[in-house]
């Protein structure tokens, strides 16, 4: 007879199921990214995934640790990381950021479950610091020759300054911030604008999120809390000074907010565990995004907002533990 501890039954889902489903949820976003930005996006995404997966594989081998590719989490990291990059980014930069994200953001922390920060964002933050200009140079979406022609910036040699064939006027966010021009929310919704590879189509990102929520694989409270906070704060600012601040709809749909709120901030490892904690965490991220976008020096603030909140997450957990049955207050 087997001597086993109770319980002797288990519910279905396991970590690899959950992670695999997140990958499924990202697929429509990935397909749209390639559709909008063509071969360059395909190459960026492929390089991102290969760099992340390869880094995890090699580091496990070197450390003599068991292989962890089977839990699928590094595939998510690779995809998410790739989706946040500008479409024309040089592939060698993509690879460097991916290696850094997984190596430093995940492996050094102790692997899946111990990564205090979202590894995809760690990779992106590294690139932002190392190559600020490349990270804010955007090629336009829906170029006519996007499936036939690979931007020369994409194929730039390592450590060489990339040359750009076509540079977009600006992303909707930078246009708003630095030129005071707005973008039609419908265009943002459908992803007809310029931006990072996978951040442009809000609708598909939401569809992926709804799929995960329906399968009980994502904490919707974080997403709702972020969106509600950003909308409310923007509405207040816009009501007080309509010329100076944008409409809430524009804020919600522009830049990396949707991808961040749905797929990045909800990384369970780096977010709080209690429901109350998740509301607080979302509030914090939403607040930081608005502050950075309105009053910071950058057009975008989602990445830093989430990374900062990642750092605070364990403290939120300590503060809002549920009240134990039968305990006082």
């Amino acid at each position, binding site marked *: *007879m087997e001597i*086993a*501890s109770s319980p*002797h039954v*288990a519910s279905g889902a396991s970590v690899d199921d*959950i992670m695999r489903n997140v990958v499924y949820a990202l697929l429509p976003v990935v397909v749209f990214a390639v559709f909008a930005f063509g071969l360059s996006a395909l190459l960026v995404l492929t390089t991102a995934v290969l760099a992340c997966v390869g880094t995890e594989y090699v580091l496990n081998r070197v450390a003599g640790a068991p292989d962890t590719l089977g839990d699928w989490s590094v595939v998510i990291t690779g995809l998410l990381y790739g989706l946040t990059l500008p479409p024309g980014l040089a592939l060698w930069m993509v690879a460097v950021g991916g290696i850094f994200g997984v190596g430093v953001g995940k492996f050094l922390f102790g*692997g899946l479950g111990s990564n205090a920060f979202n590894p995809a964002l760690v990779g992106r933050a590294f690139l932002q610091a190392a190559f600020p200009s490349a990270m804010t140079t955007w090629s336009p979406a829906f170029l006519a020759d996007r499936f036939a022609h690979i931007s020369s910036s994409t194929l730039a040699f390592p450590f060489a300054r990339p040359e750009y064939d076509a540079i977009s006027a600006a992303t909707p966010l930078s246009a708003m911030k630095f030129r005071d021009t707005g973008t039609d929310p419908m265009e943002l919704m459908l992803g007809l604008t310029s931006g990072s590879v996978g951040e442009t189509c809000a609708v598909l990102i939401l569809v992926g999120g709804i799929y995960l929520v329906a399968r009980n694989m994502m904490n919707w409270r974080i997403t709702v809390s972020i969106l509600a906070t950003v909308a409310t704060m923007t509405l207040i600012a816009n009501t007080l000074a309509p010329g100076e601040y944008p409409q809430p709809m524009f804020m919600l749909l522009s830049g990396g907010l949707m991808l961040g709120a749905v797929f990045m901030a909800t990384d369970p490892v780096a977010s709080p*565990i209690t429901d109350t904690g998740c509301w607080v965490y979302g509030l914090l991220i939403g607040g930081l995004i608005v502050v950075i976008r309105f009053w910071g020096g950058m057009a975008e603030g989602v990445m830093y907002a989430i990374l900062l909140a990642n750092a605070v997450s364990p403290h939120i957990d300590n503060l809002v533990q549920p009240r134990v*049955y039968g305990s*006082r207050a």
Partner: protein
Amino acid sequence: MTGIMDTALGAPSFRHGVHPREHKEDTRGLAIRQFPFAPMLIMPLRQHLGAPAVPVVRVGQEVARGETIARPDGFMSVAMHAPASGVVRRIELAPTISGDMVESVFIEPLPADTQEVDDGEPCRLDNATPEQIMTAIQNAGIVGLGGAAFPTHAKLRFPDDKHVDTLIINGVECEPYLTTDHRVMLEQSADVIAGIRYLVKATSAVRTIIAVEANKPDAVTALSAALPDDLPVDVTVLKVKYPQGAEKILIKALLKREVPQGGLPIDVGVICTNVATTAEIGRLLPRGRGIQERVITIAGPGVEKKGNYLIPIGTPVRFALEACGADPDITRVFMGGPMMGPAVSNLDIPVTKGTSGILAFTVHETAAIVERKVYACIHCARCVESCPVFLNPSHLGLLAKNEQYEQMADDHSLYDCFECGACNYVCPSHIPLVQYFRLAKKMVRKLRATH
């Protein structure tokens, strides 16, 4: 099968908890049947919480079925009765489900005997005092049959400054596979009501609630039909959810009261007894008899003749399984339900008063669980959302992994965990949380003992 009533809006329940597959369909419709006598019955003298009973028989002595073979040793102890007419063959240490060796009386039933049971000195409802009822319950060897095996009479005695406003009769039976309480409610509803009368008299409870989950509509009907006119007793239907049958959780679900940490239900004016225990009180006390058998469910994919059986206490698990046609592929046997039931390492251990079921799994059910990979905690919160006492199993699990046992007890309410298994059941990382928590409790006890 879940019916519309399972999700009945407005039906009381508690927050958190889980919905494991019920698997009750195989046995819920099967009437209670008498189980044959094993060639040797083993009666551990400690099969209840508290002090072991003291044997009053000698090796070689002939005993009649139902005769007292051991008397209670003090207040926290109950009597023991011969499960069959036969001969006492040995009194010696024998293994039990707890893992401990316990002094046990081995009785060999006499095959030629009629196995009739004689009535003893009855405890009559109309003229017995509360004190006499408690003594009668103790002498009948009655303990919580839901699994805890806490001496029932000890529950009924409480300090004078406390009083009972609600008596809860627990017919929830939320563990998968088990259908014993279900059948008892259906077939012995009159005994349940008779038992309630004794309990009300002993405790002066103001009202009584019989709690049943919505997956047993026929039991609800049977009990409702048996309700007395002269006593305030109600049947309350609860939503189906595990672990609603746990006393403290049930009290919260029904009355919205929380038993204080380290306290007892009586602290919030409640006494809670299992429905089968109540039926035994109602059946045994008027006849002056003791418990010598109980109803158990024998089921699981590894058993051919699944059913609800009235089985003599002391029947070895091996005999029980063989009599029911055990599959040769059985890999795991456990006593009670699959969520909390301890696994049996040795098939020679006996059924005791606290055994509500014997379930057998084959390699088909266990392989998936045994072979699955354990991942690191991904902080998914499923365990937190399932814990009925609102602990943070994820954090407790992390501390246990780091062997920070005392911190688990001091800062994270380790001792409020009653090992219901809900967190473990939902964990997608397959972390053996319950096993961790059991070990942690043991280590803390050890550490505190040496300090």
